[in-house]
């Protein structure tokens, strides 16, 4: 009952939350359908990234703290097939060489990356990142596993990842950092709520 109430509340505030979130899907229905073809419905849970969240991120990823401009309300989408939770969708923006890159992340219930797609990316090298060779290095990994792909500086990817992203190292670094922040913030902000979907 409590779970149902929460879902209702989420649906009721869905439109409002979408309007205020910076990192959000442009066409949520279509894009979630693209990542979760079996979904029948989706939920969106809006949470605010505040200074406290930023401080936690700063502790976890010392060299990849959040910009102050990122503080504010963010939306996590939950893809649902009937009563079954298929997974989560989160969109994050990351500064790159050619401006902001917006990546749509598909996350399973175990908080592992199941897929990702560029919602915005001006770099022509996104083609390299979109190749399976690179994607396979990201997909299926949780936060800890992804963290192992970081090099010692804590900001860039290690060689094992970069060798799969020839001539697109900068964009590969952006993707990895974006994935880590996405999983970390999802856990920090939405962890409690998501536990209910995992039951």
């Amino acid at each position, binding site marked *: 009952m409590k779970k149902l109430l929460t879902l209702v509340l989420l649906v009721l505030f869905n439109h409002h939350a979408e*309007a205020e979130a910076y990192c959000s899907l*442009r066409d949520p229905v279509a894009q979630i359908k693209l990542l979760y073809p079996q979904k029948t419905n989706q939920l969106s849970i809006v949470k605010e990234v505040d200074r406290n969240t930023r401080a936690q991120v700063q502790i976890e990823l010392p060299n990849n703290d959040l910009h102050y401009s990122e503080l504010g309300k963010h939306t996590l989408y939950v893809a649902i097939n009937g009563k079954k939770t298929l997974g989560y969708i989160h969109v994050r*923006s990351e*500064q790159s*060489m*050619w401006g*902001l890159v917006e990546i749509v992340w598909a996350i399973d219930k175990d908080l592992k990356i199941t897929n990702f797609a560029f919602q915005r*990316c001006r*770099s*022509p090298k996104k083609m390299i990142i979109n190749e399976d060779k690179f994607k396979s290095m990201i997909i299926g990994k949780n936060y800890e596993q992804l963290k192992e792909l970081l090099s010692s500086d804590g900001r860039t990817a290690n060689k094992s990842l970069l060798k799969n992203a020839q001539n697109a190292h900068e964009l590969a670094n952006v993707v990895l950092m974006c994935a880590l922040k996405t999983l970390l913030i999802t856990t920090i902000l939405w962890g409690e709520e998501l536990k209910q979907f995992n039951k």
Partner: protein
Amino acid sequence: MKISNYNQLLAISTLISGMIIFLALWSQYQKVEKITRKHYESRLLVQTVDHLFTMSQIWLTTQDLLFSGRQTYLANGISKQSKLLTETLLMVKQKVPDNTTSDLAQELIAAIKKNDVIVNSFSHLSMQNTQAWQNTIIESDDVTSRYISVLNTILTHVLLNDRHLSNELRLATVNFTQLTWVVISLYLLTVFFTVTWFSKYIVKPIENIITLAQQPVGMLTNIQFRQANAPIEVVALSSAIQKFTQSITKEKQKAEQEGNNAVRANEKANAIMDTMPCSLFLVDEWGAIQECNSESENLLLRSKDKILTKNIGEFIPALWTLGGDFDHETALKSMEESLLSPEFTAQYIEFSGRKITIKGAVNYLITVIDINERKHSQRALSSLNEQLINAEKLASIGQLSAGIAHEINNPVGYIRCNIDVLNEYFKSIVAYIKLVGAYGNNDVAKLMYKNEDLDLVIKDIEPLIGATLEGTARISEIVKDLGNYAHVDKKSPEPIVIDELIEKSLSMVANELKYKVEIIKCLDAKVEIFGFPQKLLQVFINMLVNASHAIESKGSISIYSKTYQHEVRICFEDNGSGITQEHLKDIFNPFFTTKPVGKGTGLGLHIVRSIIEDHHGRINVSSIVGKGSKFDIYLPVHHTEEFITELLCK
């Protein structure tokens, strides 16, 4: 070929090869320089494109700010950035090397314009019109994605071009370096071969000549200096050396022969020098003794090494000037008599010198003769001469002795008579005195006085005594004159009144002359001379006795004396038998006489001339047979100290 031709060839080839090397290197360097310039421009272009990248990133980030925050006021700034990007792209467009890239730059400029239109459209959108925002962003992203893609393409082109130029530059630099090394290697190789060739063809023959020339001198005769395989000059040089060596060999043999001759001559000269009975000294122009013979050691009583380098003046003071320098002028004189330094006991020497030039240096060869023995002989001779003179004098005394005896006998005779008379007178006077004293009877005494004619006796005593005294005085005078004549002169000359001396000679020979000779004299010399009076007296007596002997029965002798300026002339002229012309030339020779044996010694006139010459005088004679002879004696009046000293020595 001559070395000079080789040099010319070498110079020309060096010049040409240098020009080729220079042109090759210059050409390659120009190429490198051109590529370097292009590469530099390319680097600038790459930097410009990099700058364009950065500008574009900022431009796109600003757009994202606009898109995310929907801050439409950023559109103006984005527009300004677009303008800057456009300007930069125009510049890139001008600098890109190919048209494709230029077209891409142009495409970027068009994209920027298109994006500017899109961005400007935001200012017309409402912040709530989310879909419109999203659509416009998508539209802009399409343009800017294409923009980035093209920009990457341009960067790729520029980098490729830069890499190409970099490769070209590297290649050109490598080529230039290789060319340089090749040229240097070729040059060194050429130098090596040239040096080797020079060494083999030019230096080696010269070294051969040098090696051969350094052979011992004795082997030079058989050495072949001629070099066949060499430049013309070296061949000529080797031939010249060959000839020169042969010439030297001949000259050497000749020199050795001459050297041997010189050694023999030197030995002969040394033998002559050492056997010479006089001392020889070779002195330099300062008087230092350079060489001397063995006789010099005997003379100076010391070994040769203690004589050499000493100044000759130390041994012969006459060769020193008052200032203590070597007296060149005296060294060239012939000094018949000189002295060694006081340290020597046998001091008398005679020396003479000649100037000789040895190897351009003035030297003096001084001959010194020890005349101590001669000096001793001279003294002995002088003593002998003196004895001879005295003997002659005694002989003349002998000749005069009869006359002198007569002169003495005459007064002795009347002295004896006078004394006999006086003795008689003395007896009478004694008897009278006794008579008067014993008897005191005056009568007897008076008788006796009267008988004995004592008045006459007393009157006659005084004249008798006077005559006796006069006779004794006369004898005394004759004896004195004879004694004086026989007396030997003092050692030192003394003043002589010539006229008085003539008078004395006349008195000496008066008895010899008075019976047959009339003396005519005119003595007007009135002068004193310095000399030895007894010797001159002997001269005058000899003149008078000779004149007397020339007069057989009766004749005259004229004696004149007169002073003429610096000399006094004494003339003895007789009118005797005279002397034949044949005998005139011999009359002063010793032992020449025309008198019978036992009448004359033949030394009289010889001694006369000797005495006169000792007085620095001279004697002339003229004679006519049957008419008489005339002897003119000239004696100097004014005597110098030198003359007196010389007289003293004699």
